[in-house]
């Protein structure tokens, strides 16, 4: 196999049949590909850890976490924002670049959407776990009740509840709808009755008639046109969870775009990481080429610049606004106890990605892997900065304090990471890891 190069075409092999056969073969294989269990076992175990820590949380209460008086939000909110951001990146690639008709998007949109699905699942758990009395989470919903009570429509947390609900629902829909033609292909190619029934049921009767295709394309286009702005609005609302409060370090009008920038950065980094891993694992190098790496690296670089801009503006607004509590808070961020976390975020999210200006480095898979991991960690640091560092220096010095995640905080974080990878590993054994029908269009065009 040749080394990927930025000049690679969007597909090295143009044979439709070879591509379809290769991609559809993965779910049909009786024996999983090499090292599959090696990957599944630890992440499956981590998923078990997640389950265990959730059960213990419900038994013992949120006191098992590190949260305290000044820092009443901790890992749960950090992880929530982190995961929802990772998820957003996938939707963005899949929906926005569909609308722009970028042909490189077709090879990776399935990975991106699957990532979104599990990222959103991981994110969606936290707001409920985070509650002091999680069994009453449904009180957020404006349902008619005997108490005659509505939720508080002015609370950003309520907007957030709707935003997540909408986002998770539409992500699942978008993902599933994008799968339909491929499920039909799988049904048609399946040799055993079991698989035929399984995929046949999932394909919902998609037979590939031209009427169906016409309707399909229109609907998919509409869905994509909804999803692309939705991902921005969802992340804006996540930003408003913080900006809507008058808390120093949070009360900033730039939070909604800032959060979107961050979402793109971490989303692109995660997609890139998954693309690099899966093209190797599933031998998809012919369709996920140097060009894909190049494009994703450029996207990552661009969003990193956006994030860098937001960091600068964060400082600017603090000093331009001149409010004392904000300045104290910001100074603590730069030079205080948690300064390494903030500077880690700057290093990983803004400084190191600048290496991607160099064309050759964009296809250096080892370096890019490290950079992506850096960005993913860096984005977690950024959320730690926003949640913990802002809260540990409130208005009154008498309430200043510190925060440290407890063992259970870490186990839950690791657990969701396990769930995320575990979910993707399961998914690629059931669904085609690449959008076959869209790739066919691409290959047709290139022929």
């Amino acid at each position: 196999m040749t080394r990927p190069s930025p000049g690679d075409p969007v597909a090295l092999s143009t044979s439709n049949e070879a591509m379809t056969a290769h991609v559809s073969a993965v779910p049909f294989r009786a024996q999983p590909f090499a090292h599959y269990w090696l990957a599944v076992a630890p992440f499956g175990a981590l998923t078990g850890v997640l389950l265990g820590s959730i059960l213990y949380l419900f038994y013992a209460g949120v006191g098992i976490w590190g949260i305290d008086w000044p820092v009443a939000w901790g890992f749960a909110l950090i992880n929530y924002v982190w995961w929802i951001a990772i998820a957003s990146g996938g939707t963005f690639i899949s929906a926005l670049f569909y609308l722009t008709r970028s042909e490189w998007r077709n090879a990776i949109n399935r990975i991106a959407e699957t990532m979104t699905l599990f990222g959103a699942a991981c994110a969606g758990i936290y707001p409920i776990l985070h509650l002091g009395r999680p069994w009453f989470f449904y009180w957020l919903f404006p349902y008619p009740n005997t108490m005659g009570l509505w939720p508080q429509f002015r609370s950003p947390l309520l907007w957030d509840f709707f935003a997540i609900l909408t986002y998770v629902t539409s992500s699942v829909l978008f993902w599933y709808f994008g799968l339909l033609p491929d499920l039909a292909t799988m049904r048609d190619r399946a040799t055993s009755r079991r698989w035929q029934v399984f995929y046949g049921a999932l394909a919902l009767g998609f037979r590939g008639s031209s009427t169906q295709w016409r309707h399909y394309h229109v609907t998919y286009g509409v869905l994509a046109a909804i999803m692309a702005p939705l991902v921005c609005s969802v992340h804006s609302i996540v930003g408003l969870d913080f900006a809507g409060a008058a808390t120093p370090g949070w009360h900033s009008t730039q939070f909604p775009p800032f959060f979107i920038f961050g979402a793109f950065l971490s989303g692109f980094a995660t997609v890139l990481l998954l693309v690099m891993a899966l093209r190797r694992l599933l031998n998809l190098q012919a369709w996920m080429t140097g060009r894909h790496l190049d494009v994703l690296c450029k996207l990552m670089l661009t969003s990193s610049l956006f994030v860098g801009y937001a960091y600068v503006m964060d400082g600017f607004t603090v000093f331009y606004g001149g409010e004392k509590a904000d300045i104290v808070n910001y100074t603590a961020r730069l030079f205080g106890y948690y300064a390494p976390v903030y500077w880690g975020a700057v290093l990983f999210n803004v400084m190191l990605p600048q290496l991607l200006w160099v064309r050759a480095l964009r296809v250096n898979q080892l370096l890019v892997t490290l950079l992506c991991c850096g960005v993913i960690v860096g984005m977690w640091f950024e959320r730690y900065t926003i949640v913990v560092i802002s809260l540990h220096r409130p208005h009154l010095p008498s309430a200043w304090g510190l925060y440290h995640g407890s063992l259970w905080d870490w186990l839950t974080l690791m657990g969701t990471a396990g769930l995320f990878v575990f979910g993707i590993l399961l998914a690629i054994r059931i669904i085609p890891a690449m959008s076959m029908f869209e790739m066919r269009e691409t290959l047709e065009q290139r022929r």
Partner: protein
Amino acid sequence: MSRQWRALDALARDPAFVTRAEAEFPMLARAMAAQTDRRGMMRLMAAGLALAGLTGCDAGEQGGILMPPVHPAPGTVGAGSDLFATAHLAQGYAEGVRLRHAAGRPIKVEGNPLHPASLGGTDAIAQAEILGFYDPDRDIGLRRGRVAQAWQDLLTAMAARRTRAAEDRGAGLRLLTGRVTSPTLARQIADLRTTYPEMRWHQWEPVTRDSVRAGALLAYGQPVQVRPHLAEADVIVAFDSDLLSSAPGHLRFAREFAARRNPTRTDRMSRVYAVEPAPTQVGLAADHRLIAGARDLARLVPMLAASVLRDEAPADAPPWLGAMAADLKAARGRAFVHAGPDLPPESLALVHAMNEALGGRGTCWTLGAPAEADSAALGESMRALLDDMQAGRVHTLLVLDANPAFTAPGFADALRRVEFSMTMAVGPTETAGATHWLVPQRHAFEDWSDARAFDGTATILQPQARPLFDAISPHTLLSLLAGPAPAGSQDAVRATWAPQWGDAAAARWHDALATGLVAGTASPPIDVRLRDDAARAAPAVPDQPLTLSLRPDPYVWDGRWANNAWLQELPRPTTKLVWDNPLLISPARARDLGVRNGDRVEVRRGDAHRVLPVWVVPGQAPEMVIATLGYGRQDVGAVGSGVGWNVYPLAGDGPVSLRKADGQDELASTEHHDPIFSDAGEYVRHAGLDAFEADPKVLAREPALEHLYRMHPPGPAAWGMSVDLNACIGCNACVVACMAENNIPVVGKQQVMHQREMHWLRIDRYYEGDPEDPEILLQPMLCQHCEQAPCEIVCPVEATMHDSEGLNVMVYNRCIGTRFCSNNCPYKVRRFNYYGYTKEEHRPALARNPDVTVRARGVMEKCTFCLQRIAAARIVADIENRPVGAEEVVTACQAACPTQVFSFGNMAQGGTVVERKQSPLSYAMLAEQNTHPRLTYEGVIRNRNKDVGA
């Protein structure tokens, strides 16, 4: 084979059974023999039920009924609950209190406005005493050598002791008590002494105040007590003074002190100098806080005396001393000097001499006879007892209300030579574990007794409930030493007072119970001349470079309240430490030793040494090292055992050495931020009196802000509070009162270290300026009840919202625990139940205020402005079809505060709070946040002497 029977009825007709029953229970037999029809049966059952209920109401004594006060204080609301007067004993002195009963049980301690040592205020310990009353660890039972005994055994044992004591006319019989002011106890002891003429009575308090007594002896030749009238004093100089914290009568002194501290309400603000080695409560409120170690004090007091008495200007005096002396002399007749009990007697004598020379007698202060039944030097008394015990001259020792095995080094050893020893204690103590017998003592809230306040005013202590646990009164125990018939405590108390009252006994008894004091028992000022040589007293200047001072903990005191979780978790006034007693050192000494908070050091005095963690206290004299007594108790109950370190063995006079030791201890303090803050004035606004006089609005810098949202329309009432920071001395009574009133749980040391304490009301402490000599500022911080509350709009389920009376209310049942409200609260006054703290408390459910919801795990809580009290007043007002009066509701913090820092009321009706809010000193915290708090502060004005310097 025993006879078989088919029904009880059949058995009851069995003649053999009836004969047996008749022999055993004659009344039962009569009842069973009587013809019972259905109606009769019903009557019996009803009577049985009613009688079963009645037992719950009797006062535990024949003829005992509890009487409510007949003279309620002006403005008191008796809505739905009753107040019964009694007293809290602090070092033996009575502080009048009234217990609020709800649902038939005492649930809250309030001050007694009629009592001279309370004036309506209470201190933290008195507030927490209700928790001590319900302490389940009090259930110790009568024991001999740790084995449970029947009461009959006690009678037998006491009979044997009577015989033994009669043999040697009581020569080997010793009674050891705490400080006794109780006329009844004194009478009983006097009676015992007639029975056993050679019996000796010893008194022991680990915090002896012997120096104060010795100083009075030096100055006046008799152990007189100085009674300051601080409201009359223009200039006050306090040398390491306990005047506002623990001196007998301190609540009254604090009230009078505060009366002259707010320039908007007094024509002439007093000027207070505090010269002290470590921050005291006087120092916290003083205009000038001057740091002086024990050695400095031993020089400074004679220097000031020279200046005041002889107009000398000592050459090596610090620059401020002359200015201070001049100030004192200029205020002749209205100047008062006070010195604390840690100063040597010679210094105290000089202070007496100065006070005489300054001519304040009769206005600023008077002299009175001591309130104790027998004023004794407690240190000597204990030494004499220890000598006799060692020498084998004691065969019977009775310890009442004292814990010498813990507080008097050497006692436990000497005890082994005593043939028969008995401890009477309210709960487990080290002494109870060491003596042969342990007799459970009734708590003061469940027993009849009496006690005198600092000025001699007697209070009759009446039981507030039936004894919770099987225990007897000390009066009963003493009666058993005198004769075979145990006396009831009420009889004993009546026997003391009835002869003095003669025919009016019944009425006067009633009045005494109702008002909480026996009228006319205050001892009048006495006229005694200062001895000529008092002015020539010369305190020895210690030559050691390091002074180790053992001081009682402000809340656990000498260790006697160690099992009280409220007091353990009460942040100490300046250090804000809880659940521990590290060694307190100055920043300079910490630098020298190379230690930081929590690092261990070894303190050594003679053979005794201790390894303790340190805590750095800004504003402490570098020469001083302060160890706190009262901790390290081993046998006190589930809460206090094994908490902290016992430093009693370090007591003594020898030289002290200090060196860094290995290791660290984790200490819990509720102040987590960097100790010195450059501009605390942002939060606790303060200015000099001259600046205030030039511009009364000197502290006002409210921004003119528009508000985006409309304000809530005015409702039927508008609750508001004003907090006068000039009056706050940081005593924390309000904090405990809040805990007691609102069922606030304690969380324990680990959770405090995790910053999860639950206090709804906290007293913020800020340091400003130089770490060695900072300005110390205090600020009670509680929910500000913002009219534009940031917490309300962020709660997604509207669990916190505004009511029509301007209260920011918290609906616990609706709370799902997002904690967003806490994040968005600029004042950080919201507390979250991370665990089910209430469930885990070492406290029976019975002890809680039934009017306040107990919060579950996962729920946010905060100050409600004592909503339950507002609701009670609202009900009364509704019934009478009128609005709630301006000052009809008194919050728990307001009621407890000895200095009247808080004023609260319905602003729609005017009243004090409206007046105070119009004070030029009034300001809202973080006004720029535009939250429009219903709580405002009056900023601090310091009456500085410009000749003294900063």
